[in-house]
């Protein structure tokens, strides 16, 4: 079975979530837990770094949809960064770039958060 893991880095008010491995219907609950943990703590400024993510399925994409509403209601956002072309293509097909800000690098995403402040 595909392996998947997440790790979180705090950078001021911003939390950077690193994804690694295969994000599919079986591993999606793990990312859900990560997000709900952050949301419960009131951490609404989230950058997701996709650098080490090899694969994302539709169930994996659903995780982002599950939390975005609540996060935006609280003046936060999920910004996506460092996607491989393959992963970006999957996001792109579904029209995610119309819904999420997607950056080339983690730094750009963090910078965007700081600009708003």
């Amino acid at each position: 079975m595909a392996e998947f893991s997440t790790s979180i880095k705090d950078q001021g008010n911003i939390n950077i979530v690193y994804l690694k491995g295969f994000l599919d219907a079986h591993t999606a609950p793990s990312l859900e837990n990560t997000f709900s943990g952050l949301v419960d703590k009131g951490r609404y400024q989230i950058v997701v770094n996709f650098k080490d993510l090899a694969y994302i399925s539709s169930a994996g994409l659903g995780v982002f949809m599950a939390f975005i509403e609540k996060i935006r209601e609280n003046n936060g956002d999920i910004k996506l960064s460092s996607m491989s072309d393959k992963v970006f293509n999957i996001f792109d097909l579904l029209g995610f770039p119309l819904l999420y800000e997607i950056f080339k690098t983690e730094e750009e995403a963090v910078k965007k958060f700081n600009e708003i402040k």
Partner: protein
Amino acid sequence: MIRHISAENLLRNLKVQLLLVFAAVLFILKLFFSPVESFGLILLNEALVISAVAFLLFSINDFISSGKFNLLSLVMNLGILNAIMFFFITFSDSILNLFYSNLGDKIKNPDLIYTIISFFYVSIFVSSLCYIFLTFKQFYFTGHKYERSIYFNTMTIFFLLSVSTAFLDKFPELSYINHTFLIISIILIGINSIRISWIAFLSKKEKLLLLILSVVILTLFILNLIKSGDDTTHYKILNGFSPALNNFLQLMMIYGIGYFSILFFTTLFHIPTAEAYDRKAKEVSSLQYFSRLITQVLDFNDLAETITDIAIKVCNADASWISLKQDGESRIVANKNIGFVDADSITKYILNESKPSLEKLEKTIYQLSPLHDIPQLSEKYSSLTVSILRVHSEIKGYLFAAKKGDSIFDDEDKDALNTFTDYASVAIENAKLLEESIEKQRLEKELDVAREIQKKILPSKNPEYDGLDISSTFIPAFEVGGDYYDFFEITENKLGFVIADVSGKGISAAFIMAEVKGIFESLSQTSLSPKEILINANQILRRTLDRKSFVSAAYGLLDLNEQKLFLARAGHCPILLLRDGVTQDIRPSGLGLGLNYTAYFASTLEEIKLDLKENDVLVLFTDGITEAKNSEKEDFGEMNFEKILIENSHLSAEEISNEVIKGVTLFSQNTTQHDDITLVIFKFKQKFNLFGEKEWQNSVLQSKTRVI
């Protein structure tokens, strides 16, 4: 069965009746021929007495062997009977004499009174002796029902011989016969008294009680034997009634002395090892517990309950609970005689705060001074021991046992718990494996249902249109992937089609798919605009889709008269147009259904119009094709896909489809298909034209074709 029982009852009644008859005859004999002196009468008297005693024995035997008696209570009864006999023997002189002197003056017929009294007196003794004899028999046969009964039977026969020759004492020259039988009887008593293995099965407490009882009873037997030989009123009555009875009394007393002196010493020697024996017995019974564990693996919660139950018994604890590691956290799965909160705080205290090494954990017996260590406990626990549940040296959890009050676990309790824990670990592991396999079966059932739904939802055959070659292929994945495609024959020239992929897998995806079918089926009849249909579909899906779910879809309308394709795409894979040996993505913008329900969805959705010409091939697919994996986990990819399409573009729709599937199958051999594969291909043929007009139109259109 009923007849058998009644026959048995009849036999029982017969014995009692015969007993009464013999007793009555004896009574009459005593009344008229007292004292008995002639040889013939003595013989008759003895025969009657022995017969009566025999039937009394039979009757009491029926009574005793019908019930199950505790051996210790039988010993107790022996003691009581002996005490009664002792009382009568000791005080026979004073009481009976008093009785006679008082009555003798007042009543005309003192002989009758004497006979009645002696009759009753004798009856008491005879009954007691019979009971004692049968109790010994019971002892003898405990543990070995029928084997070696020959010893006992031989002894009984010599008892009988000895008793029936007792009257010969009156004739000194013949008394040696009786004495011989008596001596042989005593030897046999000695042999039979060794059979006392039943005491081994008593617990230590019972053995101590038996030791005290046997001293008292032994003393009574000895006293009774000595006193019965004295020339007292008792002797006169009993011996006068029948020498056989006196002989019987002596034999029983000797038997009692022999048996109880051996019993006393054996018990005495058993006392030091009694505790070890008790422990062994407990180990044996815990083996029975283990077999109970094995039969209970069907339900995990039951098993956990049973384990705590047995743990309490195995190590003499007051409370027990199991803490299992689940998803990296310890969780209490069963608690017996202790509140969940208490169990939880003790567990946390032991495992987290004191952080013992595993070795220490398995060896330590904790002394808890509860008020000091864990203030929030509702009860006071004095001693605690922990065993580690492990399978293949992987730690699965912990089994705790605790004592309340002042008592404390000893090393043996700890060892017993550790041993038991090994078995418990295996049982827990088995239960988990079983649960998992049941869960797996359930999922497989569920997936069967999902596949069945999907099969019914997808079109069973392709529509037939002039000038259009259609092929559709669907290969389900093991876990239903949620692919859906459909055709809507709107008019004879207009064909609507949809391809969609529901997010997620399994039965939930299958249900959404069913709804998506319903939505497109009805919407396709209300509008000709793919964009409008997708916007409406998005609004309708709002009611069913949860936040995590969405549907990628592409809806198109083919107008065969006008040779045009109208298409809108809601997040689905692009549609491929294969024309003149090149493929091109047709990819109008659009969000997946269910990602946004505001006006934004409509504003991002684009509808395009495309002119078609002869031999154009339109390819609709889902990501099951491009994301098909090989054994190196590489994707099949768009490049491979397009290459096959281009190479085979001259073939029919069906043949192109077959080549693609062949390519994907070859690429992903030795791996399992993880997503549904859907491939729908339209190939435009030169439309057969009666008027020749169409052909001209086509050539004009051809120059205008625009590819996006």
